């Protein structure tokens, strides 16, 4: 079938890479944005731009009354509160009734004021998009992401095996030759973030292994698959008594937790069967100072406050928590988070340059393969230009839509997909109209630059918080997002200007140089 194993790997790399580059680009782009989901929350939800509380939050005085007020008149299965951190200056309170109907509210820690329901999904949209692709029905998005991730692993390993001269190729960059420039960029960006790319793909698959590879679970637990999670997490559970009971001091339980954790801070508190005689309280440790997702959860008796159970993970479960923690990046270190972001963007660059290299290589063979070239060029433009464009359009809509608009959060999502579709159609039109089947890159760069500037200005006009003022007020998250918008605008403008300077070769007289 192939004349050598290297040819086999090259074919595999090309086919899988081309086939799934689109999906992987979306996953990596959204995943990179999701690293700053909390910062995007501050930007997109101006009512949450509050200073970090200077003192510890009292669960008994500041949280319990609000939880009881929110759950008044309902039989609750549980209520859950996420405590403030340096990235989230608010309490997030969630309640679930016995029919699993939930509600979620932000609460101002100092005053206990319940903020109005958020009119935006904030950074959570990008976080969920990166692993569900907004395709919830039948877990289709999850399955596609899993397929793309495994194909990505195969593609990267095949790509490594192709390059016998790995280090020589890594240090090669020939900017004077267009085709070689793209291939060198592809190699450079891939090798630069290689450990990250392999680790993030593998850990992403491992997190959802019960969905992607449930063989072991089905073989060992058979009809008791629901018990796996409880056993793996070393969790505690007990049913309600059906009789009323009072809740002991949550602050005392939190103090006991700090003592057991030797200085660790609580991140969340969950009260199961509130108001029942057999209520129990789950307190999890903050993950800001660790890579693993192991929250060393403690379970207290609700009525007496005595410690019932401490979740201590076994070795394999600890390894799983570490891998999952490496992926979801809950740690606090801003430099490490920044490196993750750069590596994620490097992954996007690797995928984009791979698509563009394929396009340029096949453009030389025109008129053969015109349809395939048009499709790939449209896909490339729809992703490389379209996805950032759609993201920026969503941020602009976030600042433009009035607070009183019904289903405001849904309207932002509609704007996102409309902008993306519009960019893709514009790209398709440009590609088919252009003599060399080239995408309208300059126009898309211009649109990105304009939208980024618009989002920055609208934030300043609508909230009064321009970047310098945000910094002065200690709103580093808002200043950071504004700074990123400014950088995006500058980068897009520079790329657009550079593209204008590059003369496309005129193959015949009178042919258009660009769409």
């Amino acid at each position: 079938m192939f004349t050598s194993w290297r040819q086999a790997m090259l074919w595999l790399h090309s086919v899988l890479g081309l086939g799934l580059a689109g999906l992987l680009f979306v996953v990596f782009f959204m995943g990179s944005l999701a690293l700053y989901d909390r910062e995007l929350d501050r930007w997109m939800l101006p009512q949450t731009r509050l200073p970090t509380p200077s003192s510890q939050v009292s669960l008994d005085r500041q949280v319990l009354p609000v939880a009881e007020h929110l759950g008044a008149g309902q039989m609750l299965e549980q209520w859950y509160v996420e405590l403030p951190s340096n990235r989230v200056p608010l309490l997030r309170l969630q309640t679930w009734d016995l029919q699993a109907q939930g509600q979620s509210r932000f609460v101002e820690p100092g005053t206990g004021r319940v903020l109005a329901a958020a009119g935006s999904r904030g950074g959570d949209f990008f976080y969920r998009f990166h692993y569900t692709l907004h395709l919830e029905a039948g877990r289709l998005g999850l399955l596609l992401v899993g397929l793309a991730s495994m194909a990505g692993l195969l593609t990267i390993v095949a790509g490594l095996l192709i390059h016998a001269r790995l280090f020589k190729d890594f240090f090669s960059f020939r900017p004077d030759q267009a085709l070689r420039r793209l291939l060198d960029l592809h190699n450079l960006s891939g090798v630069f973030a290689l450990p990250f790319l392999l680790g993030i793909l593998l850990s992403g698959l491992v997190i959802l292994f019960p969905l992607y590879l449930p063989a072991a679970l089905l073989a060992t637990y058979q009809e008791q698959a629901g018990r796996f999670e409880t056993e793996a997490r070393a969790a505690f559970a007990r049913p309600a008594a059906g009789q009323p009971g009072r809740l002991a001091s949550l602050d005392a339980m939190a103090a006991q937790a700090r003592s057991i954790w030797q200085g660790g801070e609580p991140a969340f508190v969950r009260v199961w069967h509130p108001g029942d005689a057999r209520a129990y309280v789950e307190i999890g440790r903050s993950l800001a100072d660790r890579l693993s997702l192991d929250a060393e959860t403690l379970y207290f008796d609700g009525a007496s406050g005595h410690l019932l159970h401490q979740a201590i993970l076994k070795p394999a479960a600890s390894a799983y928590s570490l891998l999952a923690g490496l992926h979801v990046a809950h740690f606090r270190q801003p430099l490490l988070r920044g490196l993750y972001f750069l590596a994620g963007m490097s992954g996007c660059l690797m995928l984009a340059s791979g698509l563009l290299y394929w396009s340029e290589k096949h453009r030389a063979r025109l008129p053969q393969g015109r349809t395939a070239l048009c499709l790939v060029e449209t896909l490339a433009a729809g992703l490389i230009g379209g996805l950032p464009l759609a993201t920026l359009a969503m941020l602009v809509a976030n600042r433009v839509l009035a607070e009183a608009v019904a289903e405001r959060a849904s309207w932002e999502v509609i704007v996102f997909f409309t902008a993306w579709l519009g960019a893709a159609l514009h790209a398709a039109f440009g590609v088919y109209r252009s003599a060399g089947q080239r995408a309208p890159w300059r126009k898309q760069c211009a649109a990105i630059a304009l939208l980024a500037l618009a989002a920055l200005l609208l934030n300043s006009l609508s909230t009064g918080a321009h970047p310098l003022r945000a910094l002065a007020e200690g709103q580093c998250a808002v200043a950071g997002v504004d700074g990123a918008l400014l950088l995006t605008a500058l980068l897009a403008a520079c790329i657009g200007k550079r593209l204008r300077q590059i003369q496309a070769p005129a193959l015949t007289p009178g042919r258009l140089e660009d769409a």
Partner: protein
Amino acid sequence: MPKARKLRAGLFSSGEGPVTRISQGATRSGAPGLHWRLAGLRKTAPARGAYLLAVLAGSYGLVWTLTAGAAVLLSRLGLERSEAVIASSLLGFVLYPTVALALFAAHRPLRAWGLVAGLGAMLLLARHLPGAN
């Protein structure tokens, strides 16, 4: 030198012997023979694509069986069920790319597939022996 070149050309090819005028499949009438036509078909994109899909599916099937077998074996050896599930699943994700790439680039695909099928059958048989679960 010509002999070595022919031997290299034989690796990863359709398994034909040294190329001679007769083995190229030229019939007495001069038309290309069936063997030569089949060799050409194997190199087409649809054939390679179909083989890739078969490799991806077959590798998944083998890793599925391996993972299930490993989990059952580990739990029978005394490891807690949840630990056995997590350990064998992690192993499965590491094995899958290895198996898929090895199968795809195998020098002798028939032998490789035979190994895969045999291993899978043995594991399935072992799991269904009395007292296996």
